[in-house]
């Protein structure tokens, strides 16, 4: 079970509490993981990635295993610890005031 932690605003929007669990077949990448998140929670479409370009929104970051993976290729395999559920994949709203 892949574990995803959404930022609080998106948890509210998706009506979820705590972590999101996903079952994925094949190689786990940012793209396949986010496709699965959006498939399970369609109201999140457009909030993490642009609807059309599928590019990460500028003030959203992806952290995993203590690393910032925001600039990795969306088709690069994610670490094994994410794929096997040992570590969560964190979707973060960039720190900002206001």
């Amino acid at each position, binding site marked *: 079970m892949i574990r995803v932690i959404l*930022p*609080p*605003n*998106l948890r*509210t*929007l998706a009506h979820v509490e705590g972590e999101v669990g996903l079952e994925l077949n094949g190689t786990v990448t940012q793209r396949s993981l986010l496709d699965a998140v*959006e*498939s399970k929670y*369609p*109201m*999140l*479409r*457009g*909030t*993490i990635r642009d*609807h*059309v370009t599928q590019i990460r*929104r500028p*003030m*959203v970051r992806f952290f995993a295993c203590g690393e910032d993976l925001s600039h990795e290729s969306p088709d690069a395999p994610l670490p094994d610890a994410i794929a096997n559920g040992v570590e969560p994949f964190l979707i973060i*709203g*960039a720190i*900002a005031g*206001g």
Partner: protein
Amino acid sequence: MSTVRVLVGTRKGAFILTSDGARKRWKVSGPHFAGWEIYHMKGSPVDPDRIYASQTSAWFGQIIQRSDDGGKTWNPPGTKPEDLMTPEGMPKGESNMFVYDASPETGKPLTTHQWYDGTQHPWEFKRVWHLEPSLHDPDHVYAGVEDAAIFESKDGGKSWQELAGLRGSDTGPKWQPGAGGMCLHTILLDPKDPQRIYSAISAAGAFRTEDGGKTWKPINRGLHSQYIPDSNAEVGHCVHRIAMHSSRPDRLFMQKHWDVMRSDNSGDSWTEVSGNLPTDFGFPIDVHAHEPETIYVVPIKSDSEHYPPSGRLRVYRSRTGGNQWEALTKGLPQRNCYVNVLRDAMSVDLLDPCGVYFGTTGGQVYASVDAGDKWKPIVRDLPAVLSVETQTLP
């Protein structure tokens, strides 16, 4: 007895204030969508339990929310289980998908507009500023967006299509953003002619369609703006808000960046009616529900000092369609008040006497139940108020 519902959008969520027709005691619900900017909420005139909300965030973009039970529960349209999948099995979730029409068949290829440095800049969707439900169909709603364009949905907000004739008009490349962005903030539907719609853009001006949104023309003759190179130009004016009384849809009232203006011919020409206002800068303008010549503005000191002159919060009322104005001060702070009142943050109810409401950037929502003679804060410590709309329920 009637009920009044006041829909308040703020920088950090939405609030719904409810009272009976006496309008003395108010119940406050919220924050809904806590932490998100709620630029605007508005109910359908056909089905008041149908309310649309624009929920937006610099982090997570645009969300459209819809309530079908008067604001008790909300959902992004098209994300309920029965709406989830396309025939191909793909998730829809397109209620927040605002894509500019670039097809040659329905509009013109994506155009550019004037940028701060004088170059041309492509349109980039940022947020929905204003939602205007149809006067006839609760599933039909218009959205005014930044960068300036008008979209419509005919399926209750599940999907949106641009009315590209506005942006594709010849003047588009001359539009430019004001300090607040290049937003389409005003949409007025003519109750006597379903094909006629007015819109207004900062900083481009006012526009009118006579064919339901296919083609648009600028209606800015008579506007005079010293902050653009040709002060009488066809476009480039920073219109802040336009208001109309439903019984006189040919008569329009405008609060411009500076100047309060009036048109008696559907916007074909405008004359200034600032008269004796202490300053003619401001954002909102509205019309009394039962007196088409009675209008309200909130004068603001200047375009750099966004607060009331002398620290005194005063609504000004004209019973003559402009030019002669009286200050309404009873119940409003008359010292040390330095809040602003934004363009969509004033509304009237339909009761008699007419109720007038406005919200401030200091988080107060003031109400007058006697057409402006006396005011009271009905809630006073909200986040900065972006928009105020009222619903009068039987």
